[in-house]
């Protein structure tokens, strides 16, 4: 995803000299070409996230369209008040890009696991959140961000995620995007864990005769309850899936949107247990420990059906 991001951003920056890329001393081998091609549109803010976001806000106030790039929780939680007071309070055109959504940084441990970031960032008024599921959605998200203005959070996986969309998707409308059709249940999924959701759907179909409609939701704020309900029409229940704590994440956002509109539909929320993950292991190993294995997702969807 990060290659799709930087490739698209570099293209947009070549067309629009107002685009700046600010990095928090991260992106070795990723941002180098951009820095060399567009030195006056690039800034390394150093290992100083509070200052980085404040600087980005000042640059945006001076008319720049600023992308801030870092990893894990560093460009979100480490500088949360700068995001709130400097960027969101003033509605500035700053996009915070973080690589390493969920458990992507596996063995680097809990300090590097972005598993509460959606909950935290979702609370800010006026902040748009994109959480793409594959490289094609990343490209589309960069385009959507470049066509609009305002505080944005772009939550990326890591790299070399499989392409799940057959054609370039439209993420700007906010409508859920079909990854696999089905008639029994609708599974709304955000982020790279979509690949696991598709595997579970495949097992449910082949082993249990249960047909699951899998839809990616790349834009999780603002969230359109009507569009979600519309996308689930004809199925008997809705489940959500995310690589993020079940507290305050995408599933919570769906439930809040339904509650606000008085939607009466059963919803099953699948995500990471509300727990500090101290085990050592790869992303796949940790996903399995945390309840996001294909087997466990399959079983919970079967029971919910």
């Amino acid at each position, binding site marked *: 995803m990060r290659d799709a991001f930087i490739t698209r951003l570099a293209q947009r920056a070549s067309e629009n000299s107002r685009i700046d890329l600010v990095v928090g001393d991260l992106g070795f081998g990723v941002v180098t070409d951009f820095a060399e091609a567009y030195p006056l549109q690039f800034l390394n803010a150093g290992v*100083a996230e509070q*200052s980085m976001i*404040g600087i980005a*806000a*000042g640059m945006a106030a001076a008319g720049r369209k600023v992308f801030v790039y870092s990893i894990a929780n560093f460009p979100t939680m480490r500088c949360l008040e700068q995001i709130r007071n400097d960027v969101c309070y003033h509605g500035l055109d700053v996009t915070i890009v973080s690589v390493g959504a969920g458990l992507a940084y596996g063995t680097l441990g809990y300090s590097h696991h972005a598993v509460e970031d959606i909950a935290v960032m979702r609370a800010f008024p006026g902040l748009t959140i994109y959480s793409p599921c594959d490289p094609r959605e990343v490209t589309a998200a960069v385009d959507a961000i470049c066509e609009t203005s305002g505080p944005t959070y772009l939550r990326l996986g890591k790299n070399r995620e499989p392409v799940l969309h057959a054609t370039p998707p439209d993420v700007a409308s906010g409508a859920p995007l079909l990854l696999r059709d089905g008639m029994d249940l609708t599974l709304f999924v955000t982020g790279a864990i979509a690949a696991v959701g598709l595997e579970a759907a495949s097992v449910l179909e082949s082993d249990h005769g249960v047909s699951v409609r899998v839809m990616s939701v790349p834009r999780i704020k603002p969230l359109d309850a009507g569009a979600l309900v519309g996308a689930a029409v004809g199925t008997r229940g809705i489940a959500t899936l995310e690589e993020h704590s079940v507290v305050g994440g995408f599933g919570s956002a769906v439930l809040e949107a339904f509650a606000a509109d008085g939607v009466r539909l059963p919803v099953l929320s699948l995500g990471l247990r509300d727990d500090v993950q101290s085990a050592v292991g790869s992303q796949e190993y940790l996903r399995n420990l945390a309840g996001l294995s294909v087997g466990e997702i399959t079983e919970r969807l079967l029971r919910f059906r």
Partner: protein
Amino acid sequence: MCSQAGAAHVGSSLSVIDILSVIYGRVANVSAASMDDPERDIVLISKGHAAAGVYSVMAHAGFFPVEWLDAYCQDGAALGGHVTSGVPGVELSTGSLGHALPFGVGRALVAARAGSTRRTFVVLSDGECDEGSNWEAALMAAHHDLANLTVVIDRNGLQSLTTTELTLRLEPLAEKWAAFGWAVSEVDGHDHAQLLQALDRRHGRPSVVIAKTIKGRGVDYMEGQVPWHYKSPNPDQLASAVDQLRGNA
């Protein structure tokens, strides 16, 4: 204003008022008429709690009607207890400390890259030099030789509970900024000629003016007294303060 509204931070407002008068009145190329001018100078008030002082100076500099001051901190008023953008002339909402300098570095960096002559001024309290974000930004400003960036520190020596030196020792403050690569000058923060001279002087790098001030300046019972970070004057105290300030003026 503070008395009528029962509002706090009158001491912080009085310590910074001469600094603001010189910046808005004499140095910064900004006025109500130039707020849409992309080449106007940028003034950022990091110590947003000094709103009463800031708004008084800005009203008299013509950014908005002086009558607005009468409704300060009243329900539905234009002017609240921390400096807020949306008020004509205010560039950045503040209130949490350590925010305006990084923002000012971003402003100054864009101006420098564009070859603009505009200057950015950031007014800090001394207590907020405790904030790490300021020192992060200080490194950045010096690294990029942002000669168009000027910080003024309202060095009144007091912070929320006691003196700055009993809280987190700041001295030697001038040497700290110099070590970070800034051009440093120290002036009497109530002497307009000294402030003017220090703010007009250009350097090839970012500059900081450490302005020695007295918290609660001009009112004998407030001067140097920590409680006036919080208290608002009762009617008798207000009458005495106004008499003293008129006498001083």
